């Protein structure tokens, strides 16, 4: 089994994701430089958080034109597992691999704190080891995580169980205060039709070790590994 972590100029969480996968989960993991044109023999690829290209113009707008994106679109088309975290999620949206777009947080400022997520769908590879409705405490760190899509897209996402995570309070109930950015329907993470491509704003790699205060994030990586092991 081999994982890949894509590195764009300005990616900041590439080392963090690589450490969790390679050193904590003990899975062979490579870095994939954004100028690489084709991708072969990877079981799962992570688009890490960070501020690719300094968020010039729009977060993720420029990264999507890197050579690696063409290869990733083809890889995803073949059913390869692809997980976009924070800036990685924004890049998936800009590349059209997931529908919708990110607006500035309604508070207008960057927010870095723990949030609670309710697991809405456990069919996909990244939540198969979680229980439906389970509550996870995972940190967010972004300035533009206010997910938006037109009504038709939102309806399609909700009706086909493609909302993977929703912001909620400690008890799992929806709450305006608990939503860190104003996302429509408190959406924190979605997946594509086949479920092999997922994007989420919170950072699971920041809570996969006891020393950092929570291991809830580890469940996502465990799910992917168990799913691949079959």
């Amino acid at each position, binding site marked *: 089994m081999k994982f890949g972590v894509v590195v764009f*100029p*300005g*990616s*900041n*969480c590439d*080392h*963090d994701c690589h*450490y*969790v996968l390679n050193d904590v989960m003990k899975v062979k993991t490579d870095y994939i430089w954004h100028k690489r044109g084709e991708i072969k023999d990877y079981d799962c690829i992570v688009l890490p*958080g*960070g*501020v690719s*290209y*300094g*968020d*010039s113009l729009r977060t993720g707008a420029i990264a999507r034109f890197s050579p690696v994106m063409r290869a990733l679109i083809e890889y995803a088309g073949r059913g390869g597992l692809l997980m976009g975290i924070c800036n990685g999620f924004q890049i998936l949206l800009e590349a059209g691999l997931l529908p919708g777009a990110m607006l500035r947080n309604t508070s207008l*400022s*960057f*927010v*870095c*704190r723990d949030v609670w997520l309710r697991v809405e769908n456990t069919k996909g590879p990244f939540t198969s080891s979680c229980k439906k409705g389970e509550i996870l405490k995972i*940190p967010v*760190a972004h*300035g533009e995580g206010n997910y938006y899509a037109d009504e038709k897209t939102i309806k399609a996402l909700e009706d086909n169980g493609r909302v993977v995570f929703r912001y909620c309070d400690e008890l799992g109930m929806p709450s305006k205060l608990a939503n860190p950015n104003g996302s429509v329907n408190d959406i924190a993470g979605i997946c594509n039709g086949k479920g092999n491509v997922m994007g989420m704003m919170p*950072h699971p*790699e*920041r809570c996969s*070790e006891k*020393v*950092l205060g929570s291991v809830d994030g580890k469940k996502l990586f465990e799910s992917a590994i168990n799913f691949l092991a079959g």
Partner: protein
Amino acid sequence: MGVSEKTESAEPAVSEQLVRDHNITPEEYAHIKEILGREPNFTELGIFSVMWSEHCSYKNSRPVLKLFPVDGPAVLVKAGEENAGVVDIGDGWAVSFKVESHNHPSAIEPFQGAATGVGGIIRDIFTMGARPVACLNSLRFGGLSNTRARYLLKGVVGGIAHYGNCIGIPTVGGEIYFDETYDGNPLVNAFCLGIIRHKDIARGCAKGEGNPVFYVGAATGRDGLGGASFASRELTDASHEDRPAVQVGDPFMEKLLLEACLELLKTGYVIGIQDMGAAGLTCSTCETASRGGSGIEIELSEVPKRETGMTPYEIMLSESQERMLVIAQKGKEKEVKKIFEKWDLHAVEIGHVTSDGMMRVKNNGKVVVNIPARKIAEDSPVYVREEKKPAYLEKANRLEEEKLAEPGDYNETLVRLLDDPTISSKKWVYEQYDHMVMTNTVLRPGSDAAVLRIKSAGKYIAISSDCNSTYCYLDPYTGGKIAVAESARNVVCSGASPLAVTDCLNFGNPMKPEIFWQFKKCVEGLADACRSFDTPVTGGNVSFYNENSGGAVDPTPIVCMVGLFENEKHITGASFVDEGDFIYLIGNNRSEIGGSLYIKNVFGMKKGKCPVLDIEEEKAVHTFCLEAIKKGLIKSAHDCSEGGLAVTLSESCIMSARGLGARIDL
């Protein structure tokens, strides 16, 4: 070889007025002519002015800074030797750290002023070859009732968040005080710490005749022209018109520069490396040549420029951000270029090392600057300023405590103290900083000290930043000692033992004898405390001329202390843990309210005797606390500071996960 008289763009002749405009005294001008053996031209005058400004040469503070203890078994690179000090943390690993001020640019443009302050201190760390892993900041603003202070606060916090979040280095702690003394002259002190193996420590020196000198990073523009000398002049109402082109930071570019430089340093092809900070190309060229005991020659037409028609004066003094000077091994030019091309960065050979000890600058082949490198870098004038005990002290220290009515309602008074912006929670600030990136943050902001793990070295460190400027106003010597003691206390409360210190000394105009007296007394206090705690000073920064139309700001010597954990199990938080735990007060609780936030809030007074600091008792408290933690007897520890015992207890309750209370028998 003299300097060609005629240069293409007619540079102004060096007149007496021009010399004064450059803050150079007649004696200093005579010294310049002696060094050159002739009159300096316009560009050379600008170079001397910025190299001999207080900001770069510390000409007024150097004799006093010699009081600091700078040696110690763990010190690998001493204060003053390089861009930042380096301290051993065992098993071949070390930390490089420093704190620097960006007060004056932040008063003019808070967002970019603070952002470039963060960018500059980060460069000082990776220029040592260290991987930056944590930033902190100490901020001071005027009273929040004043709209300008609110505007500056919003801009500075925004700038720090923008730079830190974009470059991906966590901002893990710091402190913010609000006091009328800082109206119009905020203090923005930025700290950064990096991790490095002993063998990888890089030096800022140019050695080996013929070795190529590379300019790497952003193109040069007319940013912050004369920033260094500008920082050495007071900020008065006039300065709003005197707005040099503001320096703008590009954290994305610096992230590329950081990765490229660290990758380059691994190849072993680097002889010397230095960031272009205040005084840009000027400072980096003459300091590297001076340290290497060699000369350097550069050609300005090779320097990548962002604007057209820049004169040699502008190119040499520009303070454009995100630029480095790299001296590489001859014959490795191709390899150096390849690394920077990978990261889409300029890497242009602009000159080479020479053996004649001269800093020679050419423009299209014509020599425009020819100065002995060592003389300008190290022979700056040194002054022993006049000091005079300030008149205000006698009155300020007198406080008839018996005349102060006891609080009618103690609860109301406590709530009022907790509402003071200096004490109240700073969550709304640090939640704008990404304080978790790099997944090393074990104790998050809000506790006494930031605690980080260092994955590669398998070690844990604590960092704290402190200074009570009111105590320094009432008694600079004791105030200085307390700043160090409190920083050490915060490190000890987290379970680490203090290792070393960096400081940022923010004071008024050194030409005023009362201000220089405050400065010297504070440094004496800091030095004595550092000696007592065995925490050498590894470097730092002096920022003078922090004044506004109301006079000098209170003396503010910010002390940042780094501590090392023996074991991960010793990490201790500040909030109460379980119901039924016993609460102990370690050390004497003397009834002293001089200079307290209590009398400032309730009586609007900044008066009284500064609290006593008995160093031996303080050391005993530290030793006791650390031993108790190591024996596993302590669940949480919090140091008593602003607001006193009542506030300290409240904080430990408020921060506790399950909203615990406390019952105390006085």
